[in-house]
């Protein structure tokens, strides 16, 4: 206890030097947490994007629906049931069928997806699906637009087969192109108003899947409709994130070494500078072990102070960033769509607590290491301030 008090007094007594070290060390804390938060936030972003663009709060799938086998689409649709979920925001039904488009004499197989233009759950700009002259308004993603060489205002012929297998074809007008990171709403697909597609397919009031709003809670499955929750729909992304986690650990280690460096430097300097003091302590009857303990304690206390200081400015700073996001400036943006890409760092309690704990342990070890030298000092020489 004595050594603790002594260590604290020594630290605070050193004034500017201590506070410089503490501030620098607190920076290391914040940067370790921040860097991990960015990486974590980036991983989460893929999930967030999928929720925003495609899956909402989960989807009801028609029992026969299989997104990986478009040949089954013919048998996977039914009347949209009422009361699947209880939420203020109405769920969004989507009808899916296969079709062929002929851009510039080429032939491209596509998935045609019907969605209500007035929907608000997904980020798809469905409100742009308005046409003036009777043609069907369609929106497509950037990747699809590039692949099919289509631009806003272009017309393209769509051929499909209705529920009876009868061929039909209509002109589509591209009324909007959207930029998304979610290829599963973009590549190889065309979005048109649900009512049009139901009409075209002779499938009034039918859908293939139903997107529920976020926070609507889990849906009740029925015989015809199976509820697919986030765990199911985001499984692929989750496994990638798990695999990437190990990479973050290496980054974290490098950052930890940076913090170590900060402590080590100060500690070595202070032992060198304070040889006289060490000599005095030993002369006054402290055992060498006690002196080592005192110096180790001083070093470790640095990290405690750093944690406190870091918390004072770090918590508001990190919190603000996690809420406001960090703007990632991107130069290339095609189709005149400015991408305001924001990354939201994610800090878990485990990350913060773990980092503080490990930095403290590491600081203590790093403080102890140069302090061992003390044990080798000859007290009389030390007292004279002789460099050894």
């Amino acid at each position, binding site marked *: 206890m004595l050594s603790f008090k002594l260590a604290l007094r020594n630290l605070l007594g050193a004034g500017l030097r201590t506070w410089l070290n503490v501030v620098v060390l607190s920076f290391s804390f914040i940067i370790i947490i921040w860097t991990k938060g960015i990486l974590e936030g980036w991983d989460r972003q893929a999930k967030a994007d999928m929720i925003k663009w495609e899956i909402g709060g989960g989807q009801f799938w028609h029992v026969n629906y299989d997104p990986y086998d478009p040949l089954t689409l013919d048998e996977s649709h039914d009347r949209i049931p009422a009361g699947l979920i209880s939420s203020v925001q109405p769920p969004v039904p989507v009808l899916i069928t296969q079709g062929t488009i002929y851009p510039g004499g080429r032939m491209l197989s596509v998935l045609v997806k019907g969605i209500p233009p007035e929907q608000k759950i997904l980020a798809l700009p469905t409100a742009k699906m308005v046409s003036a002259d009777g043609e069907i308004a369609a929106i497509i993603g950037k990747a699809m637009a590039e692949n099919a060489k289509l631009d806003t205002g272009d017309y393209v012929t769509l051929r499909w087969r209705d529920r009876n297998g009868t061929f039909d074809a209509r002109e589509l007008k591209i009324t909007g192109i959207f930029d998304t*990171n979610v290829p599963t709403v973009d590549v190889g697909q065309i979005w048109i108003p649900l009512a049009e597609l139901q009409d075209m397919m002779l499938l009034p009031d039918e859908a293939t899947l139903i997107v529920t709003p976020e926070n609507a809670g889990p849906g009740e499955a029925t015989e015809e409709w199976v509820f697919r929750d986030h765990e199911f729909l985001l499984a692929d992304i989750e496994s990638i994130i*798990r*695999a990437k986690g190990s990479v973050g650990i290496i980054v974290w280690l490098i950052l930890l070494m940076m913090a170590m460096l900060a402590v080590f430097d100060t500690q070595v300097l202070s032992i060198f500078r304070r040889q006289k003091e060490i000599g005095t302590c030993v002369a006054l009857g402290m055992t060498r072990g006690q002196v080592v303990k005192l110096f180790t304690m001083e070093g470790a206390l640095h990290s405690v102070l750093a944690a406190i200081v870091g918390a004072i400015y770090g918590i508001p700073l990190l919190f603000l960033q996690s809420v406001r996001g960090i703007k990632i400036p991107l130069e290339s943006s095609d189709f005149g769509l400015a991408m305001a890409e924001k990354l939201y760092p994610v800090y878990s309690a485990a990350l913060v607590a773990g980092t503080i704990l490990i930095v403290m342990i590491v600081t203590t070890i790093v403080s102890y290491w140069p302090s061992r030298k003390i044990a080798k000092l000859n007290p009389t020489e030390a007292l004279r301030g002789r460099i050894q």
Partner: protein
Amino acid sequence: MIKFLFSGLIRDKHRSLIPFLVTATGVMLTVVFHAWMTGVLGNSIEFNARFSTGHVKIMTRAYAENMSQTPNDLAILGTDTLMNVLPQLFPEMLFAERIYFGGIVDIPDKNGETRAQGPAMGIGIDLLSENSPEIERLNLASSLKNGQLPVNKNEVLLSNKFAEKLELSPGDTLTLVSTTMYGEFTLHNFTLAGTVEFGNTALDRGTVIADLRDLREALNMDAAAGEILGFLKTGTYDVVQTTAVTNRFNARFLVEEDEFSLVMKNLPELNNMGFLVEYSDKIKGILVAVFIFAMSLILWNAGLLGGLRRYGEFGMRLAIGEEKSHVYLTMIIESSIIGFFGSLAGTATGLAIALYLQNQGLDLGFMMKNASIMMPSVFRAQITPATWYIGFIPGVISAQIGTMLAGMGIYKRQTSQLFKELEA
């Protein structure tokens, strides 16, 4: 004078060794951080590259236009000669022929009639050559779930879930139903050698991996391949190098009027990867900038403390008649020498570590046991031109600023006061 200061530094180890070591370590960490971040943030890009885009991809122009449908009727012909020429033209690259195809996998009953079938996506790679780099590239050995890797003609791998759905075990026969590159209907029998798990639903649902030679027979694609992927020998994507390669290739092979002339596409032009490439790059930039800032602060602090602790000495020097400006100047030259050599040493060690991490990589497979994903478990750093100089920013500049700041005290304080600090 510099010589004088030099000997001073070398003789007084406490004045030189510790600051030198601290600077060198800081710079080393910066260099390693930069190389590791560059390499690892590109990991998703790398995963895509290995599976589908390559770092660059060669196709016919007509194929490139319809790439999403993998139209093998528009495949590259005469790949045998091309594969001999390419390594000579682009010694910095490794090339791999690939055939991507679609079809149906049909399982016979005991009478040879259909018992089960399912839609399949296929990748034709060099499976059977000894030491084929493709096996490592697709991480096949560690993704193997059942059975073994193909060693004989007409042996294939299937995704595990697909094999389960078709009730197939290693050793069983399966028939690929597809169309040849001329559009003919084709049936080809294969033997299941083993099953693999990708950790990606789309791939796990119905993937066949077959050897190029077998597929050429099955799909009537003699000396043809849909695509030739190019990989930088360094193992990680680098936009500067691939752009140069792409420009050189297209200047030589691309003919605007001929739809079957060869075209090379750079990774950002493929599969919408441009966004990911730029985004990763920007995030790396931000993380590295902040890291350098923090490291600068640490080294600045070290320089500042180093300067502060020598106030006594300065007092003494001033007392015996040295000019303030001269003391200040020597101090700065000293720290420049330390900063420069520290940065040099730090960059050298950092580069050595980064080079090891780039060439050998770090197998983090042991940390990914629960992640059943075909992502390569070996992660690599990547050295770019920036890696060479980035360490000097915190190493030379910030330590310098620290010293300069500490030195300001020489001007502010009285000689007597500085002298007193000698006693402190």
